[in-house]
């Protein structure tokens, strides 16, 4: 049975990727997961300089989901290349680095350095606040997004360039098209959805940062819809994510048009989730008598 899929010129053993920020730098899960078995590993978002992150509480639970406001804590580009990347290189699995900055130049410098370092993929997290634009995120302003992606495109040669769109837009098709036209090799969606929870006893927000990003099964129907809308608009492959807990969820995303998927919050609930999901996909295909997982991509019977 063939589980392999292609994201741009990158060939994945199978469609199951780890979602940025939910799988650490890979090493944290090596005890539970044979990293060689994964389709690809996307690491926690990296910035030029190390970032301290937000005060606690950084996470809290919500109905069928969770909020997080980690504040993009990360070791920074230098330490990532020196301390984290070498470890990941020991595995045959492609490494995709999620990058974040608050200026376009920042994204360009990061991407250039990572491209030179030979990472397999670069995922632009465009949900970050743009300091030049008074903090509104790159991913919700069409012109800015176009400029950002095309600038980065020029400097990225070897790595696959993936744009991780913000779900916080009225019309995901438009933004998908912009990312494609600006030179992305693939799209990732969806990122967490801005949300908030309040402790009615203390009257305090449940997160020190007040608002945070909603992830988990709660957002799956929104993610499925966006993947499907995006699939009907662009030709480049889509990495679908948002609330994937098991293989059935993956099949749902792929039928909606995802070429690959990313597993996020599920890793926290079950550190072996990615592996069990890969096995589950095989079982589904076997049960349905399908020998190539690519056959189900976008094969929703909508009529």
């Amino acid at each position, binding site marked *: 049975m063939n589980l392999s899929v292609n994201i741009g010129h990158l060939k994945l053993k199978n469609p199951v990727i780890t979602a940025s920020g939910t799988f*650490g730098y890979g090493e944290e899960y090596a005890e539970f997961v044979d990293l060689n078995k994964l389709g690809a590993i996307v690491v926690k978002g990296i910035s030029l300089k190390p970032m301290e992150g937000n005060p606690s509480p950084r*996470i809290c639970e919500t109905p069928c989901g969770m909020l997080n406001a980690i504040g993009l804590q990360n070791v920074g580009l230098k330490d990532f290349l020196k301390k984290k990347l070498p470890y990941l290189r020991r595995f045959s699995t492609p490494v995709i680095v999620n990058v974040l900055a608050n200026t376009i130049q920042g994204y360009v410098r990061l991407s250039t350095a990572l491209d030179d370092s030979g990472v397999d993929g670069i995922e632009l997290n465009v949900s970050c606040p743009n300091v030049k634009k008074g903090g509104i995120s790159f991913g919700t302003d069409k012109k800015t997004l176009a400029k950002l992606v095309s600038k980065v495109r020029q400097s990225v040669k070897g790595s696959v360039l993936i744009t991780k769109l913000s779900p916080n837009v009225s019309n995901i098709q438009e933004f998908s098209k912009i990312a494609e036209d600006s030179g992305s090799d693939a799209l990732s969606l969806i990122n967490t959805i801005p949300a908030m929870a309040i402790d009615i006893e203390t009257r305090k927000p449940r997160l020190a940062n007040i608002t945070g990003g909603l992830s988990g099964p709660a957002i799956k129907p929104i993610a499925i819809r966006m993947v499907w809308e995006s699939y009907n608009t662009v030709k480049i492959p889509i990495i679908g994510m948002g609330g994937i807990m098991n293989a059935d969820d993956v099949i749902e995303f792929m039928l909606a048009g995802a070429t690959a998927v990313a597993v996020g919050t599920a890793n926290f609930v079950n550190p072996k989730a990615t592996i069990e999901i890969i096995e589950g996909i095989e079982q589904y295909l076997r049960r349905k008598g399908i020998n190539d997982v690519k056959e189900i991509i976008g094969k929703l019977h909508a009529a």
Partner: protein
Amino acid sequence: MSRFFRAEIVSNLPLNNKNNLLTIKPLEPATEPDPGQFYMVEVSNSKTPLLSRPFSFFRKTPEGIQFLFEIRGKGTLMMKGFKGGEVIHMLGPLGRGYPELEDDKIPMLVAGGIGIASIFPLVQAFGKKACLFYGARDKEGLLMLDELKGLVGELIISTDDGSMGRRGTVIDVFMDFLMQTQAKACDYTIYACGRKQMLEVLSRTALNNGIKGYISTEENMACGIGACLGCAVKVKSKELRAKSRRIKNINSELRTLDYELMYKMVCKDGPVFPLEEIVW
């Protein structure tokens, strides 16, 4: 041998209407826990609540591994419903437990409320040479007293409402003790677990009296293994730690230090930290 394993509920004994004693038997070879380590417990396989909940290793018995838990919210309420024979997933043992005691030192164990769960293994380890300060809101909150009496050298009990033992917080009692005691402060090593406010006051007191020690901290958790970066606790950098002996609140300084990683993860670097390391 994986730290993520299936476990069978052996028993789930209500100690009173707010606290249960849970005993589980791993169905796969499992790692031995150290005092102060914890497990992430799957609350419901229907995935609501979604996230597992962290609970300190309380005791090992021939029947299995035991946990003491207090019913606080959704998750622990569902755990109250755990029935013998049911099978759940568990992740652990996790984190760094309490360090060994230096020879010539006297262990002072301080437990606030359900914090006794984390302290209990130390009681077993130190036995008669340990002195345990154990406080709770009321006597409902004081658990396992018979077992404790038999084990520790000295057991000093207190309740906020005076319904059992001394009236007052465990800290008040602890302070009084320091006044009277002959031994030098530096002869003691504190091991403490309880609510944030208690640990903060205790730490300040200890620092002011030059007593070393360790405290077990709490933050909301998702992964339990240092991957989600959700359970951050603010700690002092080496250079700042020196100062802090004198400075009460050093958050101000911290903020100004650029790009210094000032956070550690309770689940991975902790839950136990040297008490002088934590920033309040």
